[in-house]
Structure formats: structure tokens, C-alpha cells
């Protein structure tokens, strides 16, 4: 094992990381140029649809990296990361709803359309502040962090581990799903938020904005990848891995297992929230179905396909599986669930290390 004590140089020594970051930079540079600068008649032109799709995949890649950080390195299988993702999405969605202003169907200057429709006459207290971008941005990180902190603190302190933790996190996600479906919650109920107009004054439908969002997403993915690498490469990262491999022994050695787990879980939740916040403006809609437990389980399978405990594998798995999903749901709609089911079974039985395990020699795999 060549992982050094200084984290940063490692980032550049590790060939896989270098390749991943170089590829990401390439995408962030080339895709916008092909979309904006190359004329539509050229065969090299990328349509806005494809740009949006790539942006979406990159958001999923951030989410997958977040899950890999805690599952691959700390052994915590969280089935509520899609919920953190959705919470981040809802936070930015609230900002985007406030930005619509009088351009909504009912033209109310303050209240979003669905509130006018439900005959509300004032903004609920938790909507205050979301007309400011910085506030929404803070909430994108703080809301998932707070939820992860409370849930994680309760769970880790009483040593809820393994499968129990997975089931409880699934229940949490399910509770949020039910809550957000309620109209009384003030989050648009069933329909969620949609019909966004602009972000910071830029039209969300324009090619320029879409390309800019894509670049920002790629940069965020690179940054969060770097951050995860630093964490797992640091001394703390070694403790985290030893928690995964022998939790009791680590505790007996005097490490505070609970706080390591808790802070890693919170950080991972924030990453998921940020991914959700980047996702919503590019997709243009957020609704409670994002909380469905199946979404969280899908994220886990992206990680498993790519190879857990590798970070770049998780990101690659997210992009690969979602590309497959886009392709299959369009070409063979009834085949998609069969394919997804087969991937779940095949990967767990035949590829326990994921695709990354195929070309990495066993000694290199952590």
C-alpha cells in the first residue's frame, strides 16, 4: 500500500485519480464547446438534451461518490442518501420557486402557484429567506447535514449497525416520502416544484446556462472527489477503514468510533444535498418520488457496479448504469427492470469488487 501521510500529493500519484480528473476536465471543456460553439448542422454538435443528460449523470456521480465514501470505506450501508439528495433539491427548488415571482400562472408576487391553489394567504415561516440565493445555498448543505447529524447521532451512539442501520435509514426515507406527499407540508405535495424560470437571473432554458451548470457540476464532482480522496488518504481515513474492518477492535484501541462515523456520515449527506441542488435546476422538477426507498437502493447499486471503495468506480458506475437506464427505458421499456434486477444479482455474485475490480490487481484494492 502506497498511500502516504500527505494527502494532496497522493491525488496526483494515483493514476486512476489522475485519469478520472483529466476525463472530467475534458468533459467540462469539450461538451459546452460542442453545444454552444459548434453549429447545429455539424455532426459534432451536441444537442441541449444530451448536455442536460450529461449534467444529470454527473450529479448522480457526486451522489454515488458520497455513498461510496461511507459504504466503501466505513461499511455503513445508508438507504437514505436519495433523501438527502432530494432535500438539497427541495432547498434549491424553493429558491427557484421564489424567483418565478409574478410570472406564475396565478401571478402572485410572493406565493408560489400551488399555495395560491390551496388558498393559502401567507408564506409559511420555513419559506422565509429562500428568496436569497446565499440562504438557499446554505440550506442545501445545512438541512441534510442537520438531519444526518440527528439520525446518525441517535443511530451510532446506540450502536445500531449493519443491516439494522440500513433498514432504519430506509424507514427514515419512507417517512420523509410520506411527509412530502402531504399538501399541508407546504412543499407542493404530490406535484412538488416545477416550471422554474431562472437562476440568478440566467434563463434556465438557455444553452449557455445549461452549459454553465454542467461545468459547475463537473467542478463540484472534481472537488468532492478530491475531498473524499483527502479524507480517505488521511490518518482519519485509516481509522475509518479500520472501523469498517473491525469496529470493536478499533473501539478497544481507544478511537471514538461514533464520532468518526457521525462526521463522515454528515459530510456524505452534505455531498448528496449539493448533488441534489445541482440536479434540480438541470432537470427542472423536484417531487416526493425522489424520496422513494428504491432511489436510495439504486444509488447503492451504482456504487456496487462501479466498485465500492474506489470512489472513481462509484462515479463511473453511476454514469454507466444511468446511461443504460436512459437507453433501455427508451428502447425496451419493459426490459429495464429485468436488466436492473439482473445487474443487482450479477454484480453481487460475480463481481463483488465491481467493474473497477476487473482491472485493479487485488493487492491494490483496499
Amino acid at each position, binding site marked *: 500500500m502506497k498511500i502516504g501521510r500527505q494527502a494532496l500529493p497522493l491525488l496526483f500519484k494515483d493514476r486512476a485519480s489522475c485519469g478520472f480528473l483529466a476525463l472530467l476536465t475534458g468533459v467540462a471543456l469539450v461538451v459546452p464547446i460542442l453545444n454552444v460553439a459548434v453549429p447545429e448542422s455539424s455532426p459534432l454538435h451536441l444537442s441541449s438534451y444530451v448536455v442536460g443528460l450529461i449534467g444529470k449523470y454527473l450529479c448522480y456521480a457526486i451522489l454515488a461518490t458520497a455513498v461510496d465514501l461511507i*459504504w466503501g470505506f466505513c461499511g455503513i*450501508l445508508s438507504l437514505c442518501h436519495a433523501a438527502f439528495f432530494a432535500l438539497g433539491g427541495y432547498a434549491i427548488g424553493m429558491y427557484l420557486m421564489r424567483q418565478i415571482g409574478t410570472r406564475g400562472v396565478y401571478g402572485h408576487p410572493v406565493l408560489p402557484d400551488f399555495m395560491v391553489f390551496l388558498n393559502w394567504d401567507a408564506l409559511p415561516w420555513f419559506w422565509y429567506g429562500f428568496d436569497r440565493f446565499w440562504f438557499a445555498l446554505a440550506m442545501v448543505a445545512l438541512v441534510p447535514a442537520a438531519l444526518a447529524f440527528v*439520525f446518525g447521532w*441517535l*443511530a451510532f*451512539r*446506540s*450502536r*445500531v449497525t*449493519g*443491516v*439494522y442501520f*440500513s*433498514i*432504519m435509514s*430506509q*424507514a*427514515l426515507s*419512507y*417517512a420523509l416520502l*410520506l*411527509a412530502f*406527499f*402531504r399538501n399541508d407540508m407546504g412543499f407542493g405535495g404530490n406535484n412538488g416544484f416545477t416550471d422554474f424560470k431562472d437562476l440568478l437571473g440566467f434563463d434556465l432554458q438557455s444553452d449557455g446556462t445549461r452549459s454553465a451548470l454542467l461545468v459547475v457540476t463537473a467542478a463540484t464532482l472534481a472537488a468532492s472527489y478530491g475531498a473524499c480522496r483527502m479524507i480517505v488518504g488521511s490518518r482519519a481515513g485509516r481509522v475509518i477503514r479500520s472501523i469498517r474492518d473491525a469496529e470493536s477492535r478499533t473501539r478497544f484501541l481507544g478511537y471514538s468510533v461514533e464520532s468518526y462515523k457521525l462526521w463522515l456520515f454528515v459530510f456524505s449527506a452534505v455531498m448528496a444535498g449539493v448533488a441534489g441542488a445541482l440536479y434540480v435546476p438541470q432537470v427542472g422538477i423536484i417531487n416526493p418520488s425522489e424520496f422513494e*426507498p*428504491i432511489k436510495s*437502493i439504486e444509488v*447503492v*447499486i451504482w456504487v*456496487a457496479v462501479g466498485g465500492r471503495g474506489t470512489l472513481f468506480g462509484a462515479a463511473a458506475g453511476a454514469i454507466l448504469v444511468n446511461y443504460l437506464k436512459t437507453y433501455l427505458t427508451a428502447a425496451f421499456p*419493459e426490459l429495464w*427492470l*429485468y436488466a*436492473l*434486477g*439482473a*445487474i*443487482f*444479482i450479477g*454484480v*453481487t*455474485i460475480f463481481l*463483488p469488487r465491481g467493474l473497477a475490480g476487473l482491472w485493479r490487481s487485488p493487492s491494490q484494492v483496499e
Partner: protein
Amino acid sequence: MRVVTYGEWQPLWLLLAVCFLLLPVAANAQTADDDFRAVVAEFGDANFREKESVAERLLETGHASARAVLTALLEDRFFFRQQDQQPFIVESSDENLSSFALIDPASLEAAGTSEPDQLDRVITNNRLRRFLRITIARFALSSPDADVRVDAVKQMLRSLDAASIELLRERAIEETNSSVSYEIDTALALAALDEDEGSARVAAINTLADRLSPEVYNRLSLLLERDEDGNFIEGNEDARLAATEAIRRIDAARNVYSIIETAFFGLSLGSVLALAAIGLTITFGVSGVINLAHGELLMLGAYTTYVVQLAMPNHIDVSILVAIPAAFLVTGAVGVLIERSIIRFLYGRPLETLLATFGVSLLLQQFVRSVFTANNRPVVTPSWMSGTLQFNEAFSLTYNRMSIVLFTLIVFAILLLVLKRTRVGLEMRAVSQNRLMARALGVRSEWVDAMTFGLGAGIAGVAGVALSQLTNVGPNLGQAYIVDSFLVVVFGGVGNIWGTLIGGMSLGIVNKVLEPFAGAVLGKIFVLVAVILFIQRRPRGLFPQTGRAAESS
């Protein structure tokens, strides 16, 4: 060329003979129907006075449909068709209907439809309607069937007038059935509330104090209200006190009944949860496998019920009894298949099993969608499971909920017997306590694993049969129950059958108790949060496994 012998034709001869024997009976019924029809036809051009005598003669025929015809006449649902002057009862004469469903007055069977303007209504006036109401009531009151008499009295006490009170008084003297007498007492007491004598009213109120019907309650609360001038409607102070006391007593009784009812709803929901969760807890307890495809096994069980009903459309009542073993076998076989082909490669890696079984659940869902389409399939409730057991006006239990509770208890009893009294059960318990030691003693642990998984899956299928009676049978049936089942397992303690039963029942009751205050959705969220908090105090559930088995897991 086949030679037809006498023997082959024998059934036909028998049938013919029976037909001849039955002929006179049928002819008899025919003439009774004809007489009846003849009287009914007289309504066509009778005036109001004549209609009264026609109605009386109609009852004198003693025909079973007489009451239905007169009731229809009373409710303006009796018509003559213009083209052939045939009389018909219509199902509903709502003005918004574009066509009326016709019913034959003699046989009371459906007889097609007709446009409203093709029909002439047989009209009634107030006098005739009063006459009809009394006639029908008297007829019903003298019915030999006590249930008919009870219904008649209940009908009458909704709109009491002098004539019906008189009728009830007469009946009260000769009535021998206690429940009919009870209803007549109620009706007479309600009538006595209009007496001039204050003490008579007080006595009536005291009689009514243990009656639970809404009519009595509304009437008594009316006594305590004030008119526009601020005076009490009931002038007598004693009567008001008595009424207040009576209402307090009725409220108390209703409260007790509603608590019992909530508890029962909770128990029946809890039974469903426990039934759905029990298979999970067995597989997790013995082989440490979290089976996320469990919900889909429930779904398969429900679809098996549907298929069994398709196969025997004429025997719906017994179809459920056939479906239970069928579902057990089908889902049990699927379970063994899943275990042999997938899960056995993943023992000792619980998180991976979680993912692989989730993959299985997706496959099964899509499989069901491909075979049965994504639409919900109709499953018929057998007649012996529909209906309610009515204890009194404020309290009744539905038979299907009662059957579910009973069914759950039976399944649990059988399961306990299997685990405690059979060889397989013994081996399962041995493997779950100490796998290596069991193997050393010659237990084929692989075989036990497969059997355990099959048993857990089979019970899921049986639970699916029960679920098919309660919810829609569709591809998403499993997903609706999987999270709840897991909560029950985690709450009750993994691998503990009693824990699952008690956990399921308590979650069911808590759910139903919270529902009126918080609404169904919010109540469910509270339960979820409560279980998450509960796990803080008891990380291994209500009844944790103890001993060596607990340490290794």
C-alpha cells in the same frame, strides 16, 4: 363409429324424469305469479281510493314480492311501460338518470332498462302514502321472521306518527321476541317524549338512557337546546336533568365501544403486519438473510389467489381454502429456487444479500407486470367473509377483519408447532443457535437453509392470500408492505416469533390509535419516528436473542 348404449344415456333419462316430476310444482308457482300479476296490473287505472283496496288485496295474496311492490309505490319507483302497459319497479327513479333499470314486480329479477319518458309513474297522494306506510309496517310487524320485525320497528321509529304508535302499542302486547320488544320499547319511549305529563317524559328519557341508536341521541340532545327566545325546548327541569344524565351515559357507552373498536382495528392491522413480517423474521433468524424480495413473495401469494379464483369461478367460497396451500407451495418453491440459485453464494455477506434480493424483487415485479399487466387484478371476497357482526347500534365487527385475526393466530400456532415439534424445526433452531456445532452433529445446514428460506417464503405467500382480501392485488402490493414488515421485525427483535407477533400487534394498535388525532399519513410518520427512537433504547428489539447466537450476529 361409437355404439351408444343404454348405460351412457342413463343420466339423460334420469334428468327427464326429474323434469316431469317438477312440472306440477313449477305450474303451481306459475299460477300464484299470475294471480299476483293480475292484482298488480289493477294499479294501472285505479284512483287513489281504489289503490288502497288494491294494495290490501295485494298483501292478501301472500306473495313474497308484495312488500317490495308497495314499498316501490311508496317511494315513487313504481311505473307502467307505455308501449305494453306492463308494470315495473325501477331500481332508482333519480331524475338525473338517463335510463331506468327495470325490475319485474313478481320475480324481482332485472328486466332490462327503459328511458324515463317511456314510463308512466303510478302516482300517490299523502293519504295513500300514509295508508301504504302503515299497511307495509303492519304487514312487516306480523311477519314470522323476528329480524323482519326488528327492521320494521327501526324503520318506523325514524318517522313516528299517531297511527304507527298505535300499531306498535298493539304489537307490544303480543310480541314474544325480546329484541323486537326492545326496539318497540325504544319507539314507544321516543313517542312518549311528546307527552304532556312531565313525569311520563322523565320515565321515557330514563328508558332511552341505554339506547345507542343515533335517532335516540339526536332526539335527546334536542331536548337540551334552547329556542330563539332562549327558553329550553324541554320546559320540565327534571326531564332536562334526566336527559343530561342519559346523554352522559350514552356518550360513556359509545366511548367504551369506540375504544374496543379501535383496539380491534389495531389488532386486525397488526395481524396483517405480523403475518407479513413472520416470514422475514424466520429467514433472518436462521440464516441471517435480509430478504428484500419478501414483499414480492407476498404479491405472488396474492396473485396465486387470483389465479385460483380464475380456475374455479363457480366455487369462489372455497377458492380461498384452496388458495392457501397453493400459495404456500408456489411461493415456497420460488423461495427455495431463490435460495439455491442466488443466496447460498452470499452467506455471511448480509449487505450484499440485501442488494441481490432487491434485484430479485425487481425481477419478480416486472415478471408479474409482463404476465398480468400493470393493472390491479380483482379478487373476490367469499360470501362467508363479507358482512358484519352487529353487536348493537354503536358497535359492529366485519367478518373479514375477524377472519384475518383468527387466520394469523392459526398460522402462528402451526409455525410454532413446526419449529418446536418437528425434526426440521429442531434442525432449524440448532442451525440458528450454532451453525458449526449443528454441522458437527450431522445436521445438513445447507439443506436446512433452503428449507428455512422455503418456509419463510411460503408463509409470505399465505400472508399474500390474506392481503388479497384487504388491498388491491397489483405489482406494487409488495412494496407497500415491505417497510412496515421490516419495522415489525426490527421492533420485535430479529428471529423471535413471539416478538414479531407482539411487535406487529402493538404497531397496528398504535397506528390505529394515532389515526384519528393525526390522520393516516402523519400517524404513520409518528410510528416510524417512534420506532427509530425505540431502537435507541433497545438496539436489538423488544425480545433480543440471547446466549451465544446473539454475540456472533
